């Protein structure tokens, strides 16, 4: 492969979906032979940008230049022809399980007929071999892909992607389903690509990946590039700008919890991580924060009975309690507003009314028959207190805007009283005014229950939390009281690379220090 460095320029890209502007004027320059880490919280616009670069969406405005010439990215095929190759987050989308490694590497050729009708195994392997070697893939080429580890599948997908000499390689969360040792293989492959002059955009939430690979960092937030970092890289500053450093955004009083409702005792999220204890009280709102796959989600999913902890116990209202599944959790008074409501919460064929009442049908039923009058009335009250804007509650749920759908999903869990309300990324895809309303509502209604929310975005966390608890690589590493938050420490904890042995001391340091 040639060592010619390519320069890729992204100029003033804009994209809006209806009223919602996702990208405002994004410009970036990526030099060949370097890795640019693109950081951004959920909903920052990363995936939209990737989709524009790879030809899935077309930008409303702006252009992409490769070595000074305008590149055509109007369709996925033309983006590929221009030399922009994307490897997506979901590994299984990039490989065909039932074919072997050689066939997967040459899949594009096989599909467009460049191979002819009769395919000789020898010719196939002869052509596949250099592709595999290019990124250091040392596997027998006739291995069935379904038998490979996740890392090897990922490498196969990448090797296939780069078979057409790329100029720009985009890796979207490539390590999200890889173990640490598997990731090392991938890093080697990326470094090999870099040394061959390819420009790499590396999207990840894992700070350890970014520390290993990144030459430059760009932070994307609410559709704008809010920070561009060059060596020597200041990782904390990068995380800070990506998450939005809204110091002083705390507008509410710290509310200390009253009665202890829920306790986690000696919980370990992974067998190799250190155990931690946490307790949650009525009246307080606790936010768990950390980058993607930091473990926050595992904490709340464990409490809701979705996936048990590696080790540890849960105490609910003074009694040991093992949630076996969501049904059991709900019966015990533990409710959860799910993230990604399209997949995890909405029933697309149901009206607003039926969507909201779904978990509590028993309450409106006698001998199994639903009292629709009562249902209508209770749902109406619930969606009015959460300020859902709607015309008719018998309309389909999908007719509401994102923010209103989310308000309705919160309303769903306000129908009945609960002991613990869990919320996973409750502000995902929610406009700012809806976000304020939901946050206000959560604080106003928190009196008789423990409220635990997972928010990656620090600004969101500061808006609703009484206590912020930081997780990093499945370890609890910091607890902050809202009136004593020291932002640099908080950011440092979120961005810290995993150092398995000194975590316990970190916790003590933080809780003892008084910042104000």
């Amino acid at each position: 492969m040639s060592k010619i460095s390519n320069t890729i320029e992204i100029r003033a890209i804009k994209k809006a979906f209806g009223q919602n502007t996702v990208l405002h004027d994004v410009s970036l320059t990526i030099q060949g032979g370097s890795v640019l880490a693109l950081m951004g919280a959920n909903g920052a616009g990363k995936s939209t940008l990737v989709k524009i670069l790879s030809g899935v969406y077309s930008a409303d405005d702006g252009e992409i230049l490769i070595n000074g010439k305008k590149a055509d990215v109007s369709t996925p095929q033309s983006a590929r022809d221009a030399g922009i190759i994307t490897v997506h987050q979901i590994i299984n989308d990039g490989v065909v399980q039932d074919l072997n490694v050689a066939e997967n590497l040459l899949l594009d050729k096989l599909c467009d007929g460049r191979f002819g009708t009769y395919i000789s195994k020898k010719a196939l392997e002869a052509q596949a071999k250099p592709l595999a070697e290019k990124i250091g893939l040392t596997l027998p080429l006739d291995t069935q892909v379904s038998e490979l580890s996740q890392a090897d599948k990922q490498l196969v997908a990448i090797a296939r992607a780069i078979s057409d000499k790329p100029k720009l390689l985009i890796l979207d969360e490539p390590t999200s389903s890889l173990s640490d040792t598997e990731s090392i293989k991938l890093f080697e492959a990326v470094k090999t690509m870099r040394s061959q002059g390819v420009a790499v955009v590396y999207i990840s939430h894992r700070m350890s990946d970014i520390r290993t690979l990144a030459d430059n960092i760009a932070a994307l937030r609410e559709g704008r590039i809010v920070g561009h970092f060059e060596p020597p890289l200041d990782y904390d500053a990068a995380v800070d700008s990506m998450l939005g450093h809204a110091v002083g955004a705390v507008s509410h009083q710290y509310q200390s919890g009253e009665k202890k409702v829920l306790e986690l005792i000696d919980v370990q999220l992974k067998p190799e991580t250190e155990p931690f204890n946490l307790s949650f009280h009525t009246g307080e709102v606790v936010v768990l924060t950390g980058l993607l796959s930091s473990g926050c989600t595992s904490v709340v999913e464990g409490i809701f009975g979705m996936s048990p902890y590696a080790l540890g116990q849960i105490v609910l209202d003074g009694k040991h309690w093992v949630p076996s599944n969501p049904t059991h959790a709900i019966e015990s008074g533990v409710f959860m507003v799910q993230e990604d409501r399209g997949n995890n919460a909405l029933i697309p064929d149901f009206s607003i009314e039926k969507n909201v009442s779904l978990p509590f049908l028993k309450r409106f039923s006698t001998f199994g028959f639903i009292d629709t009058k009562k249902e209508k009335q209770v749902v109406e009250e619930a969606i009015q207190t959460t300020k859902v804007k709607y015309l008719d509650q018998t309309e389909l749920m999908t007719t509401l805007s994102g923010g209103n759908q989310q308000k309705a999903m919160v309303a769903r869990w306000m129908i009945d009283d609960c002991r613990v309300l869990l919320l996973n990324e409750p502000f995902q895809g929610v406009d700012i005014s809806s976000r304020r309303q939901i946050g206000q509502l959560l604080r106003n209604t928190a009196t008789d229950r423990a409220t635990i929310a997972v928010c990656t975005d620090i600004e969101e966390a500061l808006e609703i939390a009484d206590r912020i608890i930081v997780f990093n690589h499945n370890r609890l590493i910091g607890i902050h009281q809202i009136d004593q938050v020291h932002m640099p420490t908080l950011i440092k904890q979120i961005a810290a690379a995993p150092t398995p042995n000194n975590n316990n001391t970190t916790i003590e340091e933080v809780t003892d220090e008084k910042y104000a």
Partner: protein
Amino acid sequence: MKNTREFAIKYGLLILLALMLVLFSIAEPAFLSTINMMIILQSVSIVAILALGVTATLAVDGFDLSIGSTAAFSMMTASYVMVVFDGGTTMAILAAITVGVIVGLINGFMTVQMKVPDLLTTLGMMFLLLGLQLIPTQGRSISTGMSLANGETASGTFSESFLFLGRARIFDIIPVPVVIMLVLAVITYLFLERTRHGRVMYAIGSNEQAAKLAGARVKFYRYVAYVMSGVYASIGGILLAARIGRGDVSSGNSLLMDGVAGALIGFAVLGAARPNAQGSAIGALFVGVLLNGLTMMNTPYYTQDFIKGMVLVAALMFTFGLSNKRA
């Protein structure tokens, strides 16, 4: 334009049904007679019961291809109990219903626990039952006086009360199977539309993950759906045995296709665009009216399957093509 389209989606099938009734009765005045109407209803009743059963599995986004053979196997079981064991009406009915429950549980186990796709599970079950029904009688039909494998002659008979289920008419007009079908249609309608169980089943069918996270007992309701479908099929089998008065090895053949067609045509009734009890019953009626009318007008029998197929395809186009609800 938009209104015309909505109107077509909502009432298209019902208008078509009314149109057929008018056309057939103009062409052949005897068509509209009470007796003929009852013949239509009677011929439709068993198919409609099967369609109602499939509706339950469709509601949870499943499918049951084994209904036809479950009905046939239940028919053979009831006949065998009566003719070979001389077991009497109650035993025959209980045995047949047990068959339906067991088939439903096995289908549920395969799809829920073993995670085999619905279509494959029930296709396998269909073959299994079609084969199994032939084994006890060495492939022969069951009737009084048949000779058994050990050389003896079967001494049992179909009891009067059993045959009553298939042949009698209430007030000398309404056949018993029609009454049973109507009762089951009402029960299914109430269950699916008015109880929380039905509501949850539709939720599972629309977004299983979301339903589960809202506390729905997904596995339980999948079992419920398959057991319902199995039991309805076996009720259909009992009525079939009672109507023809013997265990006929080939009489269940067309039940599957007609039942499924009824349930799928039901999607188009009143623009529901989803499985629904009232639609399935009307869908079955639609097929029955069509076939009866064509028969009375001396259309050759060998064109009937083709016509059924055409109606089904057209109805599906109505539902899915015109409706923008499920793009």
